[in-house]
């Protein structure tokens, strides 16, 4: 099974870093004021980032 | 078939007028001397499947009728001075959000609790200026029970036509006195309903100026999903701080009324053609004025009466003309000086504007007016 695709809508991301902190496998990282998908392959599709992003800025697409 | 007639209190006539106009929602909070409007509607509305709700206060009452109106109802509330003061914020909301509804203010003595069972006409400037910010105003001032009926109907019509709150103000005297009312047959008086959108939900904008200064209005739950706010908004209903968009909307709202003055204005003139002294009076006071004019004419005094039935927008032009014709326009009202200021403004110094005011709980009687007319003659 390939790892899920993480979509970050940069225009919405306000850089609060909630997703970064809640990601259990450190897939995400802050890059200045927006989030960056640093280790996509580590994603375990737990949906924490999507669930908790207050800004509708991150979507987890499982294949 | 003879028309239905009944001896009704002014407040009862108001309730009946509302029903005739198609009112199907009343949200209120009791207050003397307006309570009978609510009482009659609490009995009558459920009979026709309409809704009567007594809210927790006047603010909530005003909120409920705006909510009801947005959901498609023809909505009414009735109150008196203290309640009117409380409603001011949401009156402004109804203006900016362009929600048709009718507010009855049965005026008593003021300010504050004042004289709850005594008459007053001291909320007439409040009707125009009570809420903060610029906003269009329509206020009607009937002078008899029959006219309360017809003006309540007209209030609903204007509210629906211009998509805004309309106030009807009358004083405790006519609110509580009883006269014979002839009920118009269904269809006899014109009934206006808000214009519904002619475009589909996708294209609909709740304040679309391309349909004129009064854009069509959809109801909540009708398939048109739109946004309503009390913030300055653009034509699409969403808040904006863009100067030009705000300006367009604000000016359009005032223009609704300023451009339609002739449609909204309604006055009665009594023996003004050759009048040397005109008495400006409205509501119950105009009844004393008419009595006085009749008596004075018997004595050969050329007196006449100008009676606004639409108080706001103010009949500026006609007053200016009368100011040029008459020696004086005497303003008689149950307050210490309100509409006289507006008359003064309009006559631009062309004639005197003597004032008769009274705030002691008693009506201005014909004698007072006759004396004043003779004084200026």
């Amino acid at each position, binding site marked *: 099974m390939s790892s899920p695709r993480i979509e970050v809508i940069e225009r919405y991301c306000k850089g609060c870093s909630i997703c970064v902190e809640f990601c259990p496998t450190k897939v995400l990282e802050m890059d200045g004021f927006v989030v960056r998908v640093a280790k996509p392959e580590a994603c375990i599709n737990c949906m924490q980032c999507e669930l908790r992003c207050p800004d509708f800025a991150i979507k987890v697409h499982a294949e | 078939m003879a028309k239905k*007639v009944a*001896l009704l209190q002014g407040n009862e006539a108001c309730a009946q007028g509302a029903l005739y106009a198609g009112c199907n929602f009343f949200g209120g909070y009791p207050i*003397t001397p307006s309570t009978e409007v609510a009482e009659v509607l609490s009995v009558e509305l459920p009979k026709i499947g309409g809704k009567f709700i007594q809210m927790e206060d006047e603010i909530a009452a005003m909120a409920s009728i705006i909510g009801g109106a947005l959901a498609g109802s023809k909505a009414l509330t009735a109150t008196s001075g203290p309640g009117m003061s409380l409603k001011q914020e949401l009156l402004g909301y109804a203006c900016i959000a362009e929600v048709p509804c009718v507010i009855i203010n049965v005026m008593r003595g003021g300010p504050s609790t004042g004289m709850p*069972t005594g008459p007053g006409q001291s909320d007439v400037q409040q009707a125009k200026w009570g809420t903060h910010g610029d906003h269009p105003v329509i206020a009607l001032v009937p002078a008899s029970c029959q006219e309360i009926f017809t003006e309540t109907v007209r209030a609903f019509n204007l509210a629906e036509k211009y998509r805004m709150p309309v106030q009807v103000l009358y004083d405790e005297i*006519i609110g509580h*006195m009883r*006269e*014979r009312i002839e009920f118009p047959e269904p269809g006899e008086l014109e009934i206006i309903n808000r214009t519904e959108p002619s475009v589909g939900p996708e294209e609909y904008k709740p304040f679309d100026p391309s349909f004129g200064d009064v854009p069509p209005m959809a109801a909540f739950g009708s398939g048109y999903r739109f946004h309503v706010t009390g913030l300055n908004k653009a034509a699409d209903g969403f808040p904006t701080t863009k100067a030009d968009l705000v300006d367009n909307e604000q000016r359009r709202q005032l223009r609704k009324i300023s451009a339609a003055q002739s449609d909204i204005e309604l006055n009665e003139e009594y023996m003004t053609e050759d009048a040397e002294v005109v008495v400006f009076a409205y509501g119950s006071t105009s*009844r004393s004025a008419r009595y006085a004019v009749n008596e004075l004419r018997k004595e050969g005094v050329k007196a006449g009466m100008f009676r606004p039935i639409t108080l706001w927008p103010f009949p500026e032009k006609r007053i200016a003309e009368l100011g040029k014709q008459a020696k004086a326009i005497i303003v008689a009202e149950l307050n210490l000086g309100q509409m006289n200021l507006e008359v003064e403004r309009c006559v631009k110094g062309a004639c005197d504007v003597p004032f008769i005011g009274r705030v002691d709980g008693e009506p201005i009687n014909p004698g007072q007016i006759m004396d004043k007319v003779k004084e200026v003659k």
Partner: protein
Amino acid sequence: MAERYELRFSGAGGQGLITAGIILAEAASIVEGKHAVQSQSYGPEARGGASKSEVIIADEPIDYPKATLVDACLAMTQEAADKYSKDIRPGGLLLVDEDFVQNPPVGDFKVIKMPIVNTAKNEVGRMIVANVVALGAMVALTEVVSRESGETAVLSRVPEAFRELNKTAFNLGFEKVKALIG
């Protein structure tokens, strides 16, 4: 009938005088098609104390809706008589309940005394219809509406069960006054 006829019903709050005024106004305006305006004054709080109801009847539309000079006044209590008989017109009428108005005011008007409450209590059997007794009496006294119109108006106001009672009250009031004034 004069061009404008002014009647006043006064007494204590709760005696039904507002209703009496309304019925009279209905008799004049609905039954007889004249013009009539009924009004009342509320006490400071609409409860207790002296109460009054006024009816103005005319052939023409009525402008000023309050009494100017009262043609006929009813007073059911001493307090009401003292307070409300003041502006009876010269030559006008004052009907008092003789049991409750022990010192009828004096003035340039005619005083008619009659036991109104007692008639209701003892002859009709229900004190509550004293106002209708009074109404019958006022109609007889002023002839401002016909006896029949008065009765019609009374009956159209009361539920079936109380029609006889009220009819009796109205007519007793009417007749007693007729007997008194001849």
